[in-house]
């Protein structure tokens, strides 16, 4: 009986150790974003292309550069104090002549070929079809907000009768 209790406690300790110390090392840590950016607020004023400027022309849609931001943000325009605090960061970046260190998600796997232009401009697919309701989000995600798996891509390609040839996307 005493042995069983002892074993139970040992297992519990081991489990706790694994859960607290080992597991986190293998699960992705949220990455810090430079600021609390609200897609929702920006989408009300602008379009997707307004900030992701290459979405219609290139493979990568691009993240806004400091210059892109400063095109609109001229000084402090926000009304709420907490928004102003975020906006001030832009000023600091400008003074320090630094780019905004975005942590973009999701990253494309190196063996996959993907072109935003092909999907958004040529085939005229809505951004929301893949990027879901990112336009509604109030903060930037720290972890990939969604996962694009091959199965998921293929399901749509099959539905739309787009190419399902491996080399159409694999490279």
């Amino acid at each position, binding site marked *: 009986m005493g042995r069983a209790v002892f074993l139970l406690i040992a297992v519990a300790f081991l489990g706790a150790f694994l859960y607290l110390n080992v597991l986190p090392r293998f699960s992705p840590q949220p990455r810090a974003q430079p600021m609390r950016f609200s897609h929702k607020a920006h989408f009300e004023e602008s379009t997707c292309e307004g900030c992701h400027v290459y979405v219609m022309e290139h493979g990568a849609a691009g993240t806004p550069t400091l210059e892109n931001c400063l095109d609109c943000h001229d000084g402090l325009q926000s009304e709420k104090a907490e928004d102003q605090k975020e906006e001030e960061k832009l000023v600091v970046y400008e003074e320090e002549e630094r780019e905004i260190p975005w942590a973009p998600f999701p990253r494309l796997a190196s063996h996959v*070929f993907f072109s935003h232009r092909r999907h958004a401009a040529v085939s005229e697919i809505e951004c929301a079809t893949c990027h879901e309701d990112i336009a509604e989000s109030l903060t930037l995600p720290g972890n990939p907000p969604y996962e694009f798996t091959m199965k998921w891509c293929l399901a749509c390609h099959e539905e739309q009768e787009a190419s399902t*040839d*491996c*080399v*159409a*996307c*694999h*490279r």
Partner: protein
Amino acid sequence: MPRYGMVIDLDRCTGCQACAVACKVENNVPFSSPELALEGRTIAWMQVLPFYEGEFPEARTRFMPALCNHCEIPPCVTICPTSATYLSEETGIVAQIYPRCIGCRYCAVACPYTVKFFNWFKPKWPEPMVAGLNPDVSVRPKSVIEKCTFCSHRVVKARERADGEKRKLKDGDYQTACQEVCPAKAITFGDLDDPESRVAALSKSPRAFRFGEDLGTEPKVYYLREGEWDVERER
């Protein structure tokens, strides 16, 4: 559906190796070294093979650019246990899907032309070269097979461009890197099924032959034997 193929005119080939270099640069193929070459571990999707003929006064060297023949009945595809190498229906390209490959090297053994290459180590480049890697082509991990893909990333781009301009893909839209650089214009590339294309016309030349035709692999790379030119047809 197009069926891409290549014609290499051996009469025009000067053995300058431009195609071999262009291929390496285009496809992020790691460099070799004399030691690696001695070990037989060089990777070269496109190689210019020398053939030596005759004794000294009458000695002669012939050149033959050799690459994957993109066989119509590819033995490498038949035996791959995971279908990591497969014959693309849409283009006729025999492609290699790296994340699927388990590195058993069976396909390399089964290819009669020995044009599949194995990544014995993780590929390395000198530091300044890393920035020059082609972003359209993945850098292969260690322990997968790789081979000529007929620059398949270019057909993707060419298709995208053509679709953007709302037109069909035409002969010459999709060119391989080796074809582009060949100073003697020995390499022609295009759709073999398109009766208009230059490559289809050349592949029917009486000089045309294919490598190991008796093997029944139906290669899509044709060679034009050295000999008299049919000037009218081939200009």
